[in-house]
């Protein structure tokens, strides 16, 4: 693999995106947004029609972190066939690591004015900081934890699960159990993560006030840049030999194993990397929304995440991003305007997409264009055959 990478190094980015029109369009749009939105926010006067309010800016920043999370899930589901129903857990863990740093930054400006302990600990009458809060006053340490905690959990969980060949539905269900167990655990006050209320009332990050316009723009830019980096790295992985093997595993796990690949190891690394991406997304999300609580672990969140990817088109990285933006925009819109319709819409979307658009929006577009222009065939055909092929009705 290193040899291949070396050859590609010359013009890595061009190599990656030369033949991929979707990615090119995606990059063009993302770059435009990254540059235009902050300008419209900072430079255009507030009464102008073109002005982007602080609310919209933060909302877009939130969507960007969701998009990164969607890419993380697309990597394991769309390219490796592992349907994780617990990815929101890694997202939330990254978020909590960031939240702990922000909590320590409050220092003595809290309600109780304790320089060492966060408010909720004072409230619970704790005398000293629990050991797992040590170090979180340092930004570098918190960032290390953003990567290490989700990564390590995914590594251990994956090591256990993939080695025993827990696949398909079983894996989905135990990932769901994982996030459910974590949710219950984080709801406990004794855990030392703020219990029900989670972590909130953040003041500043790296010394900059979170309410300042410039900080908001910086967070927005950070999210956009992380999305671009995450996308590129994911794209690189997919185009590398590792990516090709994972696709092989997705389409025919047993065959890949018989050919001689260590299926467990490939799955494990992709799963771990994906969890790290999800953790980073969570760390970007928390300072922008200003709160992290155990609700983020709820199994519903993980399943919603799956819908973003399904709607956009799994097996296409930009499909995942598109899905994250479309579904979340619809959610923001519906929950504000017609809150009672939102669940109908989301539920209907699940059913519609799975039956009529199994490849999502991007897959549909690719199908339509490939009919006109047979040369640009969809990158990877999605065929899920890991479960009981004799049950399929196609061969009836």
């Amino acid at each position, binding site marked *: 693999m290193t040899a291949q990478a070396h050859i590609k190094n010359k013009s890595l980015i061009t190599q990656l995106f030369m033949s991929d029109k979707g990615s090119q369009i995606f990059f063009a749009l993302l770059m435009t947004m990254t540059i235009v939105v902050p300008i419209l926010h900072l430079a255009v006067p507030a009464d102008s029609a073109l002005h982007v309010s602080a609310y919209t800016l933060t909302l877009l920043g939130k969507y960007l972190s969701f998009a990164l999370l969607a890419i993380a899930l697309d990597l394991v589901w769309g390219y490796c066939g592992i*349907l994780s129903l617990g990815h929101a857990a890694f997202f939330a863990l990254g978020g909590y690591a960031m939240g702990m740093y922000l909590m320590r930054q409050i220092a003595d400006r809290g309600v109780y004015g304790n320089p060492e302990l966060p408010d909720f600990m004072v409230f619970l009458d704790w005398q000293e900081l629990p050991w797992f809060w040590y170090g979180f006053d340092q930004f570098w340490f918190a960032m290390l934890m953003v990567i290490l905690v989700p990564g390590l959990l995914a590594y251990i*969980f994956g090591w*256990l*699960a993939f*080695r*025993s*060949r*827990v696949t*398909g*539905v*079983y894996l*989905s*269900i*135990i990932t*769901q*159990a*994982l996030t*459910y*167990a974590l949710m*219950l*655990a984080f*709801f*406990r006050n004794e855990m030392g993560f703020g219990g029900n209320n989670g972590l909130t009332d953040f003041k500043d990050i790296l010394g900059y006030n979170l309410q300042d316009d410039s900080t908001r723009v910086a967070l927005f830019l950070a999210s956009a840049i992380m999305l671009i980096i995450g996308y590129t790295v994911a794209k690189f992985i997919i185009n590398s030999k590792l990516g090709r093997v994972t696709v092989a595993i997705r389409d025919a796990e047993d065959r890949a194993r018989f050919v001689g690949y260590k299926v467990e190891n490939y799955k494990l690394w992709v799963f771990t990397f994906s969890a790290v991406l999800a953790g980073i997304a969570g760390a970007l999300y928390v300072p922008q929304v200003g709160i992290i609580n155990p609700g983020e672990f709820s*199994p*519903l969140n993980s*399943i919603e995440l*799956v*819908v973003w990817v*399904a709607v956009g088109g799994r097996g296409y990285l930009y499909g995942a991003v598109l899905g994250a933006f479309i579904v979340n925009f619809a959610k923001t819109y519906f929950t504000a305007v017609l809150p*009672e319709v*939102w*669940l*109908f819409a*989301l*539920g*209907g*979307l*699940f*059913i519609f*997409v*799975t*039956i009529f658009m*199994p490849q999502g929006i991007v897959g549909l577009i690719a199908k339509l264009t490939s009919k006109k222009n047979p040369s640009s065939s969809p990158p990877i055909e999605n065929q*899920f055959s*890991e*479960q*009981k*092929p*004799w*049950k*399929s*009705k*196609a061969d*009836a």
Partner: protein
Amino acid sequence: MAKKYLMNSKQKSFIHFLMILFLGMIFVSPGLANTISDADFRDSLSALNQKKFTQKIQAIEKLAEFDHGKTRFVMQSLLDGNLFYRKSDKNIFIAEKTDTELVLKDVISLEVIDIVGKRDARKISVNNKIRKLLRLKISAMSLSHSDPKVRHAAVKEMMKKPALETSNILRQYVASENDETVKNTLRVAIALYDVKSDDKSIKLAALDILGESSSLESKYAVLAVLEKDSQASYIEQDQEIIQHAKKILDSIETQLKFYGFLETLFFGLSLGSVLLLAAIGLAITFGVMGVINMAHGELIMLGAYTTYVIQLLMPNNIEYSVLVAIPAAFLVAGIVGIMIERGILQFLYGRPLETLLATFGVSLVLQQLVRSVFSPLNRSVETPEWMSGAWQINSTLAITFNRLYILLFCIFVFIMLLLILKKTALGLYIRAVSQNRQMAKAMGVRSEWVDALTFGLGSGIAGVAGVALSQLTNVGPNMGQAYIIDSFMVVVFGGVGNLWGTFIGAMSLGVVNKFLEPWSGAVLAKILILVFIILFIQKRPRGLFPQKGRSAEN
């Protein structure tokens, strides 16, 4: 259980109780006390409105001598501070407070007589001495009641604070008591007082009685005998008493532990039966058909709402509504299940991960539908009389009827399902299709028809589970989600496609959960169970009892 419901039942039982009391007084008319007309009763009541507490005490003593259906009730009202006199005419009323006003009700008929401002009536004040007297009088009145249950409750109440006065009252009733349970409780109540006595023989005898009763109260009473001073030596000087008390304490503790074990076991089995009811429908759709039905919890919810609607439809026959609701819920959930299967799932066979997503969509739609139709608030379903209450096995061990019935019902459903799968033509088809679809088709089984019916059967059982759950928890749009993950855990733990596996899985998870709870707390117990299952699946990816044979191979 819903608070609202509890209040209702309390009020109801109180009214029942009053009626019984009333009838008992009129028809049995025991010769102990003087019967009294309503007018005289009112007269003696107005004597309560005195300035001096000593005069009030006399009035209460006098009131207690008369036998009127309302005496006890009035005394209780006085004790609770609900007895008021109107300033304008000094008449006495039962008052109910609202934010700004007092609703005055007649003492005997409880009809609303007047609504006055807060300053126009004044509470008849009592002091601690009067309260004590009232409590004594009320208990004494209950002890002579004709219903043994009332007497038993009164003794239990008096047991809480053993004192000379109460024990003297209790002694009067021991000899004349003819109900065995009440008599035993009376003896224990007296022993609780006697154990503090200075007389050695009385003390030893009391200890013996406490040793037989083995309740928590007895344990604390014996512990009090064995109290130590600051130098850690016994306050009690008599070695014989100490040795005896130690022996009694040991035996009480052994018995308490045993009953505690039985109780936890029952709670565990009860939880297991709930898990089994919730999971067994899933075991069919997931196990037999390979379909991941995330809407299973919502089908349970539909069953619970069916119970609620049936109760609304037949408000005068709450007793039978649950029995009607069982087949109704089976039909409602079953039909919705068949609609899901025909409308959505038949396009997705062989793609289990996608059935998961589509049925999750269905679950969201059903939740919102229920929210729109019934409101997002929880609804409480009334428990019929024959299901409420508890089976008091002895003073420490009581088993609530609703849990007991649900346990029995769950076993009944399980056996029915086994019979359907093993003994009917449909069961044969279901097993055939699940083992080898192609071969079954070749033999002439209409597999699509079987699919729809299997799904309908699994969903219908979810609906029936909903009826049972409506008796234990609130009925709300989110109730389904609470059970879906647990149900999956049970099915996966027990082994997919194996009903006995599901049975053993549900019961063992329920029991283990309840035995962990006192040690770790409820939430941590649940987390431990989840972690255990996650680890268990690594060891045995196909559950406790994996399917064997060709059908088990991918």
